[in-house]
């Protein structure tokens, strides 16, 4: 009898409608991604960066090659030469292949001078595979990439990425 009355007065349907009405005013989960960047975790590991000494502007890397040795993917290549005067190793080239990187963060853990660091930048997509290998200038100065959020006009044209035209 109760069940019959429930069906006659659409109790379940009304309960469903009440639920959907409640969710209509629920906080929306959607992120407006390119215009609105997500808030990342504090220790998020993203794009690599090779730090310079903020006072002298010289690189912090002492070319000890520890990052290259600890890397499980073997994707870091450190090039160096010995300065004949000071008998110190000097960094010449440094490449970091982001296409193979698993962002484990071992390189930044082991680095004795905090030279290599994984930043919070996660926008690593690019149009060519070769472009995913970051060289020393890109690691130090960042990547001149298309910013989809700030300027929607250039977002449609690939040509707007000056960096890619130079290298890719």
């Amino acid at each position, binding site marked *: 009898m109760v069940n019959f009355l429930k069906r006659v007065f*659409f109790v379940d349907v009304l309960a*469903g*409608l009440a639920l959907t009405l409640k969710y*209509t*005013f*629920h*906080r*929306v989960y*959607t992120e407006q991604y390119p215009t609105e960047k997500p808030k990342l975790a504090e220790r998020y590991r993203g794009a690599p960066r090779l730090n310079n000494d903020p006072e002298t502007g010289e690189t912090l890397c002492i070319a000890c090659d520890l990052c290259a040795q600890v890397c499980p993917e073997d994707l870091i290549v450190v090039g160096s030469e010995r300065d004949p005067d000071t008998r110190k190793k000097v960094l010449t080239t440094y490449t970091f292949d982001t296409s193979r990187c698993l962002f484990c963060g071992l390189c930044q853990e082991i680095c004795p001078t905090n030279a290599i660091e994984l930043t919070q930048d996660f926008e690593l997509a690019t149009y060519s595979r070769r472009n995913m290998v970051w060289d020393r200038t890109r690691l130090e100065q960042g990547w001149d990439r298309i910013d989809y959020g700030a300027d929607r006009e250039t977002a449609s044209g690939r040509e707007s990425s000056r960096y890619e035209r130079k290298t890719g």
Partner: protein
Amino acid sequence: MDSVFIISYVVIPLLKIAVIVLILSGAIAYLTLLERKVIAHIQVRLGPMRVGWHGLLQPIADGLKFILKEDIVPSRADALVFTLAPIISLVPAFVVFSVIPFGPPGMLEGVLRWALSPFFSPETVQSIVESGSVSGGFVTDINIAVLFVLSVSSVGILGIILAGWASNSKYPLLGALRSSAQMVSYEVALGFSIIGVLLIARSLSLVEIVQKQQQDQLWYIFVQPVAFVLFFICGMAETNRLPFDLPEAETELVGGFHTEYSGFRFALFFMAEYASMITASAMATTLFLGGWLPPFPSVPAFSFLHLVPPVIWFLLKVFLLLYIFIWVRGTLPRFRFDQLMKYGWKVFFPVALGNVLVSAGVLLRFI
């Protein structure tokens, strides 16, 4: 005399029709946006946000896209019927609005006097304003309006059946068959649910039905709640809306009757669906919710509600019902086909019939 005739029976009705068609087209376009927005928020999404502020220009972008898309007629299809079908389903949905009253008779009297007085003598203006339904808030008031609406709106389903047949393809045909079965089982209950109102109003004219609700100081939803619920459910089935959208049933029938349609012909079907949603809401408003009347039309304490123009009240109620249409779509899953037939014949039809008998008995015995 002649100019009076032309103005009051040709020019002014044509102007009214133009205004209604324009407003209706705009309403259909923005109803799609409303639906996408409401359903998105029910699902805790945002819906269209890119075109214009919060997607306000999305309907225009969609319309442009439909026009620019390739219009395909399948090679084995019956080209003539294939072309006619979307038109047949769209036109009736618009035609129905010729009898739906947006406002009371005499609503436009002041406007007409103001517009006509510089050009005609006062006597001519008087005779224009007083002739026919020129100054009413409706295109025409015919004494069989309810019948007219029922018969014309069922022609719309003919378009769906023709589309399914002419496409010469399996899924559209299945959709069309479902549509015809659905029409047969729901139109009966729909018709019977209106009879209760007709018995009380003693009229088939939609204008008079609203005026009777003013006289009785009561919207008919309070006298005929069962009929209202039935009318609304059957209206949903009639307009092929979820949970009764079996002729389309994307998950089972690809797209149902419009599987083979593309470009602007598809857009016509889409518009027809939304137009008939508006039709069903407008009919429910007129029959059960007091049309252009504010709540408590004759209670002096609520007379301030008359300050809002009657058209606004009408549109508000229609909007409310449309929102419920969308809300229900966002809530309920689709019925299985046998469930649909079961509810149509075994539940709604007997209940509607019982409602008619009980109302008739009460009216005979007590009033």
